[in-house]
């Protein structure tokens, strides 16, 4: 088990606007750092740092094409976020079921 779970890493990674913008860009297709940085109001080295964080969260992956590094969207990080929300609703609906049934029992016993 790593210090931070994958879903937390993914959420933290996408909590940053620049990283969300980078991620959105990559959703359109794989591209190199130069193309990713193009049009973004941050330095190339900042982009590299953001890419590293996205990669750690398994939201993107990198492959070498000749001398260039090509980045692309990875599914694992997205699935982690989905699972995280699923767990939230599972817990919420579990609580809700208990409360609703308790409320119904109280209503019946009052009659």
């Amino acid at each position, binding site marked *: 088990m790593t210090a931070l779970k994958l879903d937390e890493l993914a959420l933290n990674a*996408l909590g940053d606007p620049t990283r969300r913008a980078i991620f959105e860009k990559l959703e359109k297709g794989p591209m190199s750092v130069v193309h990713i940085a193009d049009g973004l109001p941050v330095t190339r080295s900042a982009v590299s740092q953001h890419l590293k964080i996205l990669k750690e969260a398994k939201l993107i992956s990198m492959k070498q094409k000749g001398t260039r590094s090509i980045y692309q969207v990875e599914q694992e990080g997205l699935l982690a976020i989905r699972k995280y929300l699923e767990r*939230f609703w*599972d817990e919420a609906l579990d609580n*809700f079921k208990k409360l609703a049934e308790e409320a119904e029992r109280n209503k019946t016993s009052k009659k």
Partner: protein
Amino acid sequence: METIKLTTIKKEVVVQASQDTAFKVFTEKMDAWWPKTHHVGKCPMVESVLEQKPGGRWYSRHEDGSEVNVGHILTWDPFRQVILAWQIDGNFQYVPELITEVAVDFIPDGPKTTRVILEHRDLQKLMGGAKVVESMDEGWGMIMNLYKKVTDEA
């Protein structure tokens, strides 16, 4: 290119309660069923409040007295259906521009049995999705300003 579309999470639960009880508990006692581990705002949550009317606010109150928006009611149809605008992102931070829908249907399955179907829709927006794609044509500068504004206000 294939990416996973996180469009909808669908959950179904059968409760041994009448339709009106189920609806009332869901909308009036949100505070009691909402997992306390997930709250918006920086301070521990005291209660979660949903105003019981069309367009009603949905917000939480916190220990320091602050109120933090969660969203609002899109459809109010007691005791059959409620649709909530969920305006928090994947980090449980309020983002006014972001709306994903939580639709909850209460279907009677007997006098004291109700099927509750919950759909959390448009989840792709939590990934920075539709809003960004729509705005893409207007250039990145505008988007970055929008994001900055949102981040500053959060």
